[in-house]
């Protein structure tokens, strides 16, 4: 095992544990949101190990630093600190969901273990892979249209959020 592999398992384990913590924590929604931050940061570290440097930075900046802050704000502003699992009959239905989900996951994992393509080691990356230069050149030549679309999408988000939230809450 190389250092990178060990780090991958550490961060992967951290991501899974904190993701479970987010979903299973019904007592404290703030703690859920903070677990999500841990997941995001661990995923950022895994992107680093996968040599996607720019994406790793943006993952932590936007997901870890911005999106979860927004969640945290809403949780704190509305004081939504608790929640409970559904009672009675619904619990049965949802347990069925859980069992089905885990069963499908096990299927996928078995299939992944057999896949020859994934079992093969990927070769060395080309020079400058995942750095700002390569990503930027690709983004602003081949995918220019996508960038402009993203900007329109963000405009829609600003306007939509403002209209939905503009009235005072209390």
């Amino acid at each position, binding site marked *: 095992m190389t250092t990178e592999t060990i780090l991958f398992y550490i961060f992967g384990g951290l991501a899974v544990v904190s993701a479970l913590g987010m979903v299973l924590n019904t007592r404290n929604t703030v*703690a859920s949101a*903070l677990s999500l931050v841990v997941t995001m940061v661990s995923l950022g570290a895994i992107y680093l190990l996968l040599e996607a440097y720019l994406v790793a930075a943006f993952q*932590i*900046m936007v997901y*870890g*630093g*911005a999106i979860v802050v927004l969640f*945290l704000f809403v949780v704190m502003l509305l004081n939504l600190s608790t929640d409970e699992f559904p009672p009675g009959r619904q619990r049965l239905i949802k347990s069925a969901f859980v069992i089905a989900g885990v069963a499908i996951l096990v299927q996928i994992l078995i299939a992944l273990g057999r896949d020859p393509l994934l079992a093969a080691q990927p070769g060395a990356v080309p020079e400058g892979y995942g750095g*700002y230069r390569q990503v930027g050149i690709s983004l602003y030549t081949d995918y220019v249209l996508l960038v402009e679309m993203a900007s329109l999408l963000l405009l829609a988000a600003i306007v939509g959020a403002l209209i939905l939230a503009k009235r005072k809450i209390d």
Partner: protein
Amino acid sequence: MPIEPIIKILFIFSVMVMGLAPIITWIERKQSAVMQDRIGANRADLNGITILGLLHPAADVIKLMTKEDMVPDGANRVMHMLSPLIAAVPAIMAFAVIPFGGVYVFGDTTLNLVGADINWGLLYIFVLGSIAAYGNVIAGWSSNNNWSMLGGLRASAQMISYEVTMGLTIVGVFMVFQTLRLTDMALAQDSSFRLLGFLDLYLGLDWGWIDWIRVPAWGIVYQPLGFLMFLTAVMAENKRPPFDIPEGESEIIAGYHLEYSGMRFGLFFMSEFIEIILIAALTTTIFLGGWAVPLLSTDTIINGISSVMGAGFATGLCILIHFVTFLLKVIFMIWVQMLIRWSLPRFRYDQVMSLCWKILLPLSIANIFVTGVVLLWVKG
């Protein structure tokens, strides 16, 4: 594990964090005393020796260490403990990418004086800044105190607002230097250009003295507006006066660290001071030429000394000169921040927010496009 990064990290950590951070608490006291016509910190003594009040930082640490560790009733104990760590550790970690010297060649080995020479060094600092914002908001939330909660919300709203502005004000520098790596930025500033060079380039005036009027090729020369806006944004991000609304004593007592005592408070306090040093080091590296001596490039220094002393010694001496230059510039920037802090009264919250969204953000975007037009025009 290679030994070289460990030595470099321990060096910059001990100089910048452990060495400078206690001293600037002293600088701040003395500076305020000078500006308010007082004598300032001079009481702490060992057998009557006060060393200009330099014992005060040590006294501070002893005091903070021996205070009672308090957690208020109804607080979330785990997060109450965790939030000072979240505030302090990213501030410390940012020093890994600050270059405190250039790239030197000793025979066949090269020495690059930076803890971690990351390709996206500046983004690394932004990443840490976005994580550090959690420290305050969690501190405010976990304390179970109205004032703390308000302070935490104010702190995080202010920090996230200025994070965007901080990022956009610095894009002009990326455009000039064409890199995100702090080492490359500092290397690019290790030169100078002729201030009146356009006279013989465009007008054909062949005067000999034109070569002698030189300006260091620093970021501040290319991006003066960017420098001012960046300094404003990072100072607001650090939440120190005049931007200390999250902890405004007269309104919300002490804000998010109201319920903190002893070293838990000390870590918040320390992280603010570490961030002062970080701001100074960052503005120095990006705008003030980093370790570069004004108008004397590395080659000039090494060639000048090695003609007398020999190449190895010359390089070593050059490293020393560069590090001292860097330290002097950092201390100058710390002093500038102290000057601003003790000169200006506190802003109102709405003023801080409109400064960010209504003034700095449009200005920084305008700065980006003006820089772009000028760069493309100059490059033809």
